[in-house]
């Protein structure tokens, strides 16, 4: 089963009301804008349906749905065909906003909802691991960012200092 099949499955989950809204992030999301980025898993961010009378959000409805379609759990992943998939709830206002403003991109006749490039870049800056910084550099190098929108996001989510540090560390010789 291919990544496109994963997208078909997740779209069906949304159509069947198992999840409210989803968007693809991480390396798979970045691949919509950049060159293919090696990854072992697909990150799907979801707005979880809250169940009446329950305060905690749970993955159980998603897992039940997928199990009934032949998927299974492996470590922290749900295996959808050959792909380990992580269903993630937004853990910050930045990721919530990325989910709310994600865009639809056609994948050979199947619509996929994906974080905007500017949000993927801002999340990479916020996360700040070596591979995230490398990804942010790729976004910049390939001219994939709307600089105004990107800087608005940085200001809105208090990431300007982190951006200034990143600029000093990686971009001082590029200007």
């Amino acid at each position, binding site marked *: 089963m291919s990544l496109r099949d994963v997208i078909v499955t997740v779209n069906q989950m949304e159509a069947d009301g198992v999840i409210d809204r989803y968007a693809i992030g991480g390396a798979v999301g970045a691949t919509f804008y950049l*060159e293919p980025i*090696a990854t072992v898993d697909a990150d799907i961010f979801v707005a979880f349906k809250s169940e009446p009378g329950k305060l905690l959000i749970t993955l159980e409805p998603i897992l039940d749905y997928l199990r009934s379609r032949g998927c299974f759990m492996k470590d922290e992943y749900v295996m959808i065909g050959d792909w380990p998939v992580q269903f993630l709830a937004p853990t910050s206002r930045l990721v919530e906003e990325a989910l709310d403003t994600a865009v639809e991109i*056609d994948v050979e006749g199947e619509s996929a909802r994906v974080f905007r490039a500017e949000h993927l870049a801002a999340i990479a800056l916020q996360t700040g691991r070596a591979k995230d910084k490398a990804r942010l550099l790729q976004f910049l190098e390939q001219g994939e960012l709307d600089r105004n929108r990107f800087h608005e996001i940085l200001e809105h989510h208090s990431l300007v200092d982190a951006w200034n540090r990143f600029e000093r560390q990686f971009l001082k010789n590029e200007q």
Partner: protein
Amino acid sequence: MNHFPQKVVDSKRAFRRELAAKPIGEKLRILDRMREREATIRRAAAALKTNRTKARE
């Protein structure tokens, strides 16, 4: 000091742009193949580690 020839840097950059410009369906198929390759390498590495451990025992 940077000893990396500019020609190589430019050529890599051009290839990455070429890959980025491919249709998304094609790029996702490349990810499918990369993931399969990575899984094969991980299995081989795990088997190698197991064999080395057994050899030491």
